[in-house]
């Protein structure tokens, strides 16, 4: 009983933090567009975004499990966009941009090998322990 109360309280706190961030964003965008948003609108948007994050988290977890991995990688995230081609294009661009930025940071790493390499921190730890 006490643990569920604590969990509920934690969820409320996280929602409040999200509410604050979303509120800041909406207020700023509204100022740009000469609009206004009711507090109820921000609250409802917060609820929507929170639910979306929760669903995303569960999806990602299941995707990586299905792939036989314990760590979620970028492929799992790309799988989120499977029903929306335009969204996939955008995230692909973002991914390429991130990869090229990383490639510039440590020049010797090949972009293709990079994703695999980063997906294995747990695995390599075991390997080292054996050797």
């Amino acid at each position, binding site marked *: 009983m006490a643990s569920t109360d604590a969990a509920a309280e934690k*969820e409320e706190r*996280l929602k409040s933090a*999200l509410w604050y*961030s*979303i509120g*800041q*964003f*909406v*207020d*700023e*965008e*509204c*100022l*740009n*567009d*000469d*609009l*206004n*948003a*009711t507090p*109820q*609108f921000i609250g*409802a*948007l917060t609820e*929507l*975004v*929170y639910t*979306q*994050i*929760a669903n*995303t*988290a*569960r999806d*990602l*977890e299941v995707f*990586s499990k299905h792939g036989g991995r*314990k*760590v*979620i*990688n*970028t492929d*799992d*995230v*790309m799988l*989120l966009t499977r*029903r*929306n081609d*335009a*969204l996939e*294009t*955008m*995230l692909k661009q*973002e*991914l390429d941009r*991130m*990869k090229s*930025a*990383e490639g510039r940071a440590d020049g010797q790493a090949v972009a293709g090998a990079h*994703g695999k390499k*980063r997906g294995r921190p747990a695995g390599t730890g075991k390997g080292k322990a054996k050797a």
Partner: protein
Amino acid sequence: MPPKNAAAANSARRNGPQFKPPRPVNAPTQASATAQRAPATKKTTASGARPAFQRATEIVSSEDEQEEDAEDEDIDDDDLMEIDAPTRDTRTAQPASSMSNPIPAALLARLLYENFEDSNTQIQKGAMNLVGKYMEIFVREAFARAKNEREMGLRAGGISDGFLQVEDLEKLAPQLVLDF
């Protein structure tokens, strides 16, 4: 400082014909808007200090083009505003903050980890950044569609006080969730 400036200009105009360069009519109100905004922008840029995030320029639907147009107009305003120098700093700081993510990365990471069913689940940093982008697009899209919904309501002859309502969100939510 800027309102005082504007007031001085007005009184000068009343007293007699004196050369003053043309200035935007809404300058004082905008200046006060930036004054209100200033602390908020500082905060968001400080907390979401993540230069890696690009602005979502290439976006899918027409609503977002409208949004972009609006921002372009904003930039035009900037150029006008530079005639009155004092407000310039806050104005130039503003587009940078609109680039930042609506959900801070740390908060998003926390929310994701809280919602994993298996507490051993981990997520790569690159994947985390990508989820951040995904949620940013989601929030921006929700806002853009709400704005569009409001404009459609206005065109249909409804009365509007310029407030985004929960009803707008209710109308767009099903399609939005299906699209993401």
